[in-house]
Structures are given as structure tokens and as C-alpha cells.
């Protein structure tokens, strides 16, 4: 045999079609309609924010891998870092200061992912842990939602994001999201806001960059589901987890203190959570039963935290909390081995 044969002697000699890079790019493709819509709704702010996150994310990942060893930098090109950065950018407010995005991508790529051993070994969802980190460390900038009607041109956006990003000149542009309004109403006893459902579904109200248009996120999600990249257990579990307590509290709870479950169904963050955040395979359990329970509890927590707690959006907290229980869930729901 003149040529040196493949070193692996055992195991199948042939392989199916699925590739890691292909998988990641398909998920990015599923995200792209909602992304393009965000560019349309928020104008340049969204585009610059996305570029900032992705480029700084790639650089951080490349450097982190290079520090580990020369051979590993190849892993920086497998699209998983890009996906986490896009998800992070979509869950941040559009017109935030530039360091918000760079710090976010540092926390998500370097601390939450590479420090734990790189792709496949991180225990917490990188995008969500960065979002929680930013929400806790700089709440002011994280809750400044750009009003879609007042989006600015390229030059103004750049000025806002890079030069005078401090608070004062910034308030003019912001407005409250539906969930914000509901929380304020609950605290101050004002009548509940009755949001325009179709408006929210199509996505022209304010909110984090990617979580605006529930319809396009649903579209991307359906594509992922039917092309077999994700399994139904995680999205179904999450949606059940959100809708069950929502309808329960809406029916049983005292009149006028809880939003109708429909609002949650059309809210962008629910669709984003169901199809893109919860379904991150690395930080979710592997067995179907464990996946359903995992997603259900995330849904329930992400409903309870804004309902009874301080923070308007509970998804990121819920995801981190449940990520830490994944090893236990897997040990609990281990399927019966053949013949045992």
C-alpha cells in the first residue's frame, strides 16, 4: 500500500452527510429573517451592534484558542462562536454604547465558553450568561429600548454609540416595552396596558434587537424543526412551560393583575427562547424526557420571575438556573439500556 491509509482502524469506513459547520450555518440562516427585520426596524444601530459583537467575539475566541495551543485555532472557524455572538446581539438593546457589546461578547465567548473547555463543554449558555452579566452590571443601558420611530441615520447612530453614549442625550429616543409597561403598572397600580397583539407579532414595537418580530423567529424555528436540526422536545417544553402558568394565573389570579397568555405567545422573547436559546444542544440535556422537563421549567421560571420578581425579562435567568441542573436531570432521566 503505497499511500498511508487512514490511521483509524476500527469504526465505520463511511460517514453520513451532516457536518458541524453546515449545522451551525443552517441555524444562522434560520436566524437571518429576524436579523434583517431588526436592521429594517432599528436601522444602523442594529447593524453596528451586530458587527461589534461578532467581530469582537471572533477575535476573543481566536486569541483564547491560540493561547491554549496552536492547533486549536481551527475551532474558531466552526461557526459556533458566530452563532453565540448573533444570539447575544439579538438579546441586547440596539442603540447601546459600544463597550456593552464588546464586554458582552468577552463574557460569553471567553469566560462562559472557552474557560470551561471550548465548544461542547461549556455548562452555561454563553449568550444568556453574558446578558445576565450585563443586566446586573449596567442595568441603565440594558433597559434603554430604542423607539422604532425615532431611529437615527448612520452618522447620528455612530455618534450615539461611540462618542456621547452617556445617559442624558439618550433618553429622548427610548420608550418602554410592553413588559416594562406591565411591570410599572403592576407596581404603581395603573391599569394594565392592552398591547396591539398583531403589532407585537409582526414586530414593530420596541424591544431587544432580535426579539422584535415573533413571526420571523417562528418562521426560522419551523425551518430548524422540519429540517431535523432540533427536536420538538425543547421548543414544545418551553412553550408549555410559559403558557401553562400564564393561563393558570390569568384565570385564577385576581382580575387585572396578569397579562393574558396570548401576549406571551406573540412576545418576541418567547419565540426566540423556544427555538434558539433553549435549543442550544451543548447546554441542554440529551435524553428526550430530560429535555422536555428542562425546557418546561425554563418556561415556568421565565414566566414567574417577571411576574413576581424585580426584572422585566426572566428568560436569561431561567436558562442559567436550569443549565446548572442539567447533569442532575440527565442522571435522573437516563433511558433503560437494552436488556437491563
Amino acid at each position, binding site marked *: 500500500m503505497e499511500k498511508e491509509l487512514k490511521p483509524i482502524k*476500527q469504526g465505520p*469506513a*463511511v*460517514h*453520513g452527510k451532516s457536518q*458541524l459547520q453546515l449545522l451551525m450555518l443552517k441555524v444562522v440562516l434560520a436566524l437571518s429573517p429576524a436579523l434583517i427585520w431588526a436592521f429594517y426596524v432599528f436601522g444602523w444601530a442594529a447593524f453596528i451592534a451586530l458587527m461589534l459583537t461578532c467581530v469582537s467575539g471572533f477575535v476573543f475566541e481566536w486569541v483564547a484558542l491560540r493561547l491554549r495551543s496552536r492547533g486549536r485555532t481551527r475551532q474558531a472557524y466552526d461557526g459556533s462562536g458566530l452563532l453565540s455572538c448573533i444570539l447575544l446581539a439579538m438579546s441586547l438593546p440596539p442603540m447601546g454604547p459600544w463597550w456593552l457589546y464588546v464586554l458582552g461578547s468577552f463574557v460569553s465567548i471567553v469566560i462562559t465558553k472557552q474557560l470551561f473547555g471550548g465548544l461542547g463543554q461549556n455548562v452555561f449558555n454563553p449568550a444568556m450568561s453574558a446578558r445576565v452579566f450585563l443586566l446586573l452590571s449596567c442595568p441603565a443601558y440594558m433597559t434603554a429600548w430604542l423607539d422604532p420611530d425615532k431611529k437615527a441615520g448612520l452618522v447620528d447612530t455612530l455618534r450615539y454609540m461611540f462618542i456621547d453614549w452617556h445617559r442624558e442625550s439618550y433618553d429622548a429616543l427610548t420608550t418602554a416595552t410592553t413588559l416594562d409597561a406591565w411591570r410599572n403598572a403592576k407596581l404603581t397600580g395603573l391599569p394594565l396596558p392592552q398591547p396591539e397583539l398583531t403589532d407585537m407579532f409582526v414586530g414593530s414595537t420596541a424591544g431587544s434587537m432580535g426579539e422584535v418580530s415573533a413571526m420571523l423567529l417562528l418562521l426560522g424555528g419551523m425551518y430548524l424543526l422540519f429540517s431535523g436540526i432540533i427536536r420538538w422536545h425543547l421548543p414544545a417544553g418551553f412553550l408549555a412551560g410559559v403558557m401553562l402558568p400564564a393561563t393558570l394565573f390569568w384565570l385564577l389570579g385576581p382580575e387585572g393583575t396578569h397579562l393574558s397568555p396570548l401576549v406571551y405567545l406573540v412576545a418576541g422573547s418567547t419565540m426566540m427562547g423556544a427555538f434558539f436559546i433553549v435549543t442550544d444542544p451543548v447546554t441542554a440535556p440529551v435524553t428526550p424526557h430530560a429535555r422536555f422537563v428542562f425546557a418546561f421549567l425554563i418556561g415556568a421560571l421565565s414566566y414567574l420571575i417577571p411576574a413576581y420578581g424585580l426584572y422585566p425579562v426572566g428568560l436569561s435567568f431561567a436558562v442559567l438556573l436550569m443549565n446548572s441542573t442539567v447533569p442532575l436531570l*440527565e442522571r435522573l432521566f437516563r*433511558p433503560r*439500556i437494552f436488556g437491563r
Partner: protein
Amino acid sequence: MMFGLAKKFDGGLKLPPNKHGAEAPSRILPIPESLTYYLTKNIKETHQCIVNIGETVLFGQSIARGLGHQPDIHAAYGGVIEAIGSKAGPYDAPEEQAVIIRTSEYKNVYKHDDKIKNKSDLLKSMGVAGMGGAAFPTGEKVQAAGAPRVWLINGVECEPMLSCDQCLMREQADKLVQAIRYLAAEIMPGRVILALESDKADAVSAMRLALGDVTDIELACLPPRYPQGGEKQLIQTLLGLEVPSGTHAAHLGILVLNVATVMAAFDALAYHLPLTHRLVTVAGQGVSAPGNVWVPIGAALKDVLDFCGYDGAATLRVTVGGPMMGRAVNSLDVAVTKGTSAILALTAADELAVYSAQPCIRCGVCTEVCPARLQPEDMYFNIRAGRLNRTRETGLMDCIACGACAYVCPSEIPLVASFLYAQQICRIEDEQKARAAYIGDLVKARDARLAARRSVRMGKSASREAAARTVDPAAMEKVDAAREKARSKIDK
């Protein structure tokens, strides 16, 4: 009579059949110059050679006695024993001890005497082993199954590219039915089921024709799905029964024999013909004339591949056995063994697996295709972390190495290679534990021996003392007093 599908087996996946040359009629390999028979497997001795160098042997003469239940080895052609030395082997270890015969003729056949009555010993002496790939000694299996409740004849060839069972059934359907009936008379099974996959149309029609409207042999046409041909999976599909882990189906009274093994067993029991030749599929893009070839066991891969138009330049990997469960070989002078069902010359065009071992993203697709309902990604994680006892708890020993997980893994991780490596390490560890237990028994035996000797000696001295006390009691008091003083000094 069609057999209702009891239960589909877990996991499994649909593979592109790409059976090149399956329809081509079988050909016979001309006599190769030399034949090689292996006496060891992974340097552990399995056969004892009973011929010496320079001796001439006849066609069909047995040249090595199998140790334990291993079946004997017979010369496929008459010739001279050229050498007994180490040669490249198809197993994990690079070199194996082997007997090499320089072939000369095949006219006069060695006559085996008919003294052996017991059928499993006869099968052992005629060298019949499982030909589906695992080469499990058939004699031992038949003996363990006794009068089996169910006898499954496994014609399911679920691996892509393999077509030797299909060709055998297509061309020798009548002889197969005759063989089944003869063996059924011998082992008295409760039910006889012949299973094959419905996408092998020619084999199905040939068998239907041969069986006609017979009632005692049931024909089961199963939808094609990999790895349905596995013993445990076939039993789960046809009988809806899960063979408990760690036990062979034979112990449950279910005998599963490959179609080719049934033919070999028939020749051995009815005509006392040893197993010397077998039908081997030669396929892959690296071979210009793929198909099925009657090959003498012991022929080198080089001869068989050249016979089918082997193109060495394009071939990247030569595999012995199927594309999923087969094993790659480094050199072509490895010989065909009883378990070799195929020789594949694979080129880049055959979707060759490149194990780039990218990080595992826990997508769980391998968990869905695993027929043993294991967690391949969890086991791989523990093997990489070096925690082999954790892997064993999660079912490492139940892995049948079917390769379905490695086939679908998007990160192209060498899953099966890791599992087989871990299994071998665990077997070595088990051996060490067994040895420790054995030595523990030796130590206990030694203590018992010393204790017995001491009690005997004490007994003797006690009787001598008693006798002395009766003769002269006064002296004995002085002795007791002295003993007391000595003992008190020690206690202080």
C-alpha cells in the same frame, strides 16, 4: 406465511444500500499460491498447530486443533507447509502467529473418519464458525441452545455494499431449504423463521419459490433498516424479546445462525465436509468488477482484489468486513478468515469517513440511532476524561459496535474506535481483578494449611504432655510454675 412484525427495534437508521455487483453471478477464485491460517488472535493463542514445516497436507485435512470451543482449521487446498511464523493479521495486533501453506493441487481429498457422534463436537472438528462476521463457534452455540424454542436463520444483510448472503440465497435456495430441513431434524427447534430484508427482491423471490407453500419454515420479509442483522436486534424485531445484557441468546433457547453458517453446518453434519471455502463480497469504487467470489479461507486479500480488477492508485482504504462494522487493514497480505464477509476497496467516492474529531456538541443524534439505547456522547465524554468505570456503569459493555452513532455524528468523532479501546481496557482490568481474587484464594489456602499443621503438632505435644503428667505429676507442676513465671514476665 408472512410473519407479523412484533416490534421495530430501537434506534437504527436508513443507509444507502449501494450494493454494486449484487446481481452479478458468483465467481470462483483460481488457486492462490499460498494460504495463511492464523493460530492467535491479538497474540492470545486460539489454535494449536498439529502439522510441522515441510509436511504435505491434503485438501480438507485439519492442520490446527482449536483450543476450548474454537473450531479446528483445515487446509483449503493440498500443499506443503511452508512456514509457521508471524504474519500481518486482520485483528488489532499488527502481527499474529500463522501457518503458511504453499498450495500444489486439490485432487485427492482427505477422508474424515465418522467416529464423532455428538453434533457440536462434529461441528467443532469440521471447523464450522459463524460466518456473519463475529465468527462465534457454531458448535458451542448449538450445544448451548439445546432444542431451541425458536431457530432464526439470519439472511438479513443490513450493511451497505454487502451482498454475499443475498447471492447465496439467490443461487442456492433449494440447497438452503434442504439444509434447513436436515438441521431442523437434528436440533428439533420449536419454530423455524428465515428472515431477510424485502429490498433484496431476487433473494426473496428465489426463497419463496424454493419454499413453495411449506408450513414448517416461516419466511419473514422485514423492511430494510441498519443494524437489523444484529442478533439481539433481529430477536427484538421478530420476537419482541430483549436478550438480557451479558447473556447469549442461545442460553434463552433462541438459536440464530447466518445463512452461510447453516450451509456450512449442513455440509459438515451430512457429508463430513470441513469449512474451507466461503462466499466473499468484493466491492467499493476501487474495484472495477465488484461482485461475490467463492474464496478459499486463507487466501490473501491481494489475490482476491487483483482477481476483481483492483486499482491501487485510487483506493484510500481497504476494509475487511462491512463498511460499518468492518476493520481497516494496513497491508494486503492479510488473509481471509472464516468471519470475513467482504473485502472493500474504498476510494474518496465512497463518502469515506474522515475522523476530524471536532468537539462534540451534545446534539443527541447518536443517542437516537443507538440500537442498544446507550448514550454514546456521554460514554465518549467519560472515556476522554479517563473515567472508564463511569463508562462501564452507563453500558459500555452493551455496545455492539454497529457504527450507527459514528455514521451520523456531525463532528465526525471516532466513537466506535474509542468504545472498542475502552472495552479492551476494561477486559484487561477484569482479568487483573480475577487474578487478584485467584491469588487471594491461594493465600487463604496457605493459611488453612499452616493452621492445620499447627493444630496437628499441638495435638501431638498435648498428648505427650498428658502421658508425662500421668507418669510423674510432681515434675509437671515445676514445669507449669516455670511456664507461669515466663508468661508473666512477657505480659509486663
